[in-house]
C-alpha cells in the first residue's frame, strides 16, 4: 500500500504539510494524491474511532452469521446488496467456511436488533438461516486499543 494511504489510515487528520515532510513530497503533491484517491473511490470516507462503551449509550452491536442460497445469476451479490441497504447494517462480508455472509448490525437495544433479524433479515428470499452473537465489550477496534495504555516507563533522558 502507498505509504500515504498507510499514514492516513492511521490518522486521517494528519495535515498535508506534515505528510509532505514525512514522505519527502511537496505539499501540492500530497494534496493531489489525496484528491485522486478520493475521486477514484480508493478513499471512501473519513471517520472517528469512537469508544462507544465509554459513552454508556446502551446501544448493542450484533455479529450475525447468515447462510444464503446463491442465486442462479448474481450469486451472493444480490442478497448481499439487499442486506447492505438496511441502515442498521454497518458491515457486510462474504466469508469462506460454515456460513456465507457476516454482518455487523447495531441497534438501540437488544429488542431492536432481534426485530431486525426476525422480521427483516430472516424473511429475505435466499436467506436460509441466521446465528446472532451480541458483543459484550470492545477491547480493540480498527487497530486502536479502547483502554488507554499505561504511561511510558522510559527514563526521561538516556544515552
Amino acid at each position, binding site marked *: 500500500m502507498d*505509504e500515504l494511504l498507510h*499514514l492516513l489510515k492511521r490518522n486521517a487528520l494528519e495535515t498535508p504539510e*506534515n505528510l*509532505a515532510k514525512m514522505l*519527502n513530497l511537496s505539499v501540492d503533491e500530497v494534496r493531489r494524491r489525496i484528491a485522486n484517491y478520493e475521486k477514484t473511490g480508493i478513499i471512501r470516507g473519513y471517520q472517528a474511532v469512537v469508544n462507544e462503551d465509554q459513552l454508556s449509550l446502551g446501544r448493542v452491536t450484533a455479529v450475525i452469521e447468515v447462510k444464503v442460497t446463491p442465486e442462479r445469476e448474481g450469486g451472493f451479490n444480490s442478497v448481499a446488496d439487499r442486506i447492505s441497504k438496511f441502515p442498521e447494517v454497518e458491515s457486510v462480508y462474504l466469508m469462506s467456511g460454515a456460513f456465507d455472509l457476516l454482518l455487523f448490525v447495531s441497534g438501540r437495544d437488544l429488542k431492536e436488533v432481534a426485530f431486525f433479524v426476525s422480521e427483516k433479515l430472516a424473511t429475505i428470499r435466499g436467506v436460509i438461516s441466521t446465528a446472532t452473537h451480541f458483543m459484550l465489550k470492545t477491547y480493540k477496534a480498527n487497530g486502536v486499543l479502547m483502554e488507554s495504555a499505561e504511561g*511510558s516507563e522510559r527514563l*526521561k*533522558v*538516556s*544515552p
Partner: protein
Amino acid sequence: MKSSGSRIAAHVRDIPRSGIRDFFDIVSTMKDVISLGIGEPDFDTPWHIREASIHALERGVTSYTSNMGLLSLRESIARYVARHYGVSYNPATEVLITVGVSEALDLALRAIIEPGDEILYHEPCYVSYAPVVIFAHGKPVAVETRAEDGFRLTRAQLEAKVTPRTKALLLNFPNNPTGATLTPEDVRDIADFAVKHDLLVISDDIYAELTYDGTHTCIASLPGMKERTIFLHGFSKAWAMTGFRMGYACGSPELIEAMMKIHQYTMLCASIISQEAAREALEHPETDVEEMRAEYQRRRNFLHHSFQEMGLPCHQPRGAFYAFPSIAHLGVTSKEFALGLLDKEKVAVVPGTAFGACGEGFVRCAYATSMDELQEAMRRIARFIHTLQPSARARPHTA
C-alpha cells in the same frame, strides 16, 4: 582514617560525571516535558517476542546457560549475521552472547588492552567509549568528525592520530548521536587503514538495521577484515528490546575465547529468558524491524524538513534515530540552548558536548518519540529559536 573518597582508584575518580546524568537530574524534576533526549525506542518489544519470554518462564526455563550463551541462539545469530552482513561465524567458537553491547565492548577492550595502549575512537560518540577504555587502563584517542563531512570518519583524520601504540579502532556507524553512516568506500578506506597499521577494529553496529539511505556495510565483511574485527551487535535498538539487555560479539576464536574468560568470571552468562526472547526475534522475524524502520524514517524526514524550515542547519541523518542540528549561529552554547529550551518550552534535548567536546554547537534530538510529540516539539523549538535569533535579541538595544 582516610576518607572513603581517597580510596577510590584514581582512574575511576578522575572520570567526570556524565553530562547526560546531570541533564537527567534536571529533567526528572519537571512535569509535562516532551523529551527528545531518550536514546531508546518508544516502541514496545514486539508482542510475539514478549510472549516467547513468558512461555519460557512457564516452561521453567530459569537456569544458567553455557558461558557462551545458548547454542541455539548463537546458531540463529550466525545465520542472521551471514545473511544480513555477509560474514560467516562459527556459532560454536566465534559468537559470544553478552549482557547488551555495553558488556561486549567492555569485554573486547579488557581482552586486548595492555596498560597504556591507545584506542582510536571517533567523537561525537556514545558516552561510554572513552570511560570504558580508561577502565581497561587504555588511552582513548578521539578523532573528531565534522558536520561538513556529514560526521563521516575519514582516513586522513585517522592517519593524523595513529601512533605506534595504537592497538585498535573503535567504530560506531550508524552513529549515536549524529545519525551519520559510512559509505562502502569509507568502510574500505578505514579497513585499508587498519591493515596498514595492523590494528584491530571493534565495530559497534547496534544501529545497523536502522539505516535509511543505502545499505549498511559491515567492516568484517571486507576481505582480510574478519580476523582483525570484533563485531558487536544486539537486540536493543532494531527490536526495541533495551530492557532485555541482549548483545553479542563475533570474532576470531582466540579473541572470543579471551572475552569469554572475562565474561565467565564476571557475568557468568546473560539471562536465559532474554536469550529465549532473542531467539524468537531472529527465528520468527515477522515484519517488526521493517515496520519500525519505516516509521523512524518518516520521523527522520519530518524532523529534517522541520529544522530546515526553522533555519536550523542539520545534516540529513542517514541512520539510527538521532538528529544533530547545529545551534552555533544562535550565540549560545549547547548547554545554554538545552537548558533554555527546557525552561521556556519544556522540551528536552541533549547538549552535544555530552558526546565529546567537538559536540559543542550541536544538540541531539532523538526521534524515538511519537509523531504527535515530535510535531509539538518542533513547534516549541521554532518558537524558542525565534526568541534567540540575533536580530530578535538585538531589538531592545536598538530601540
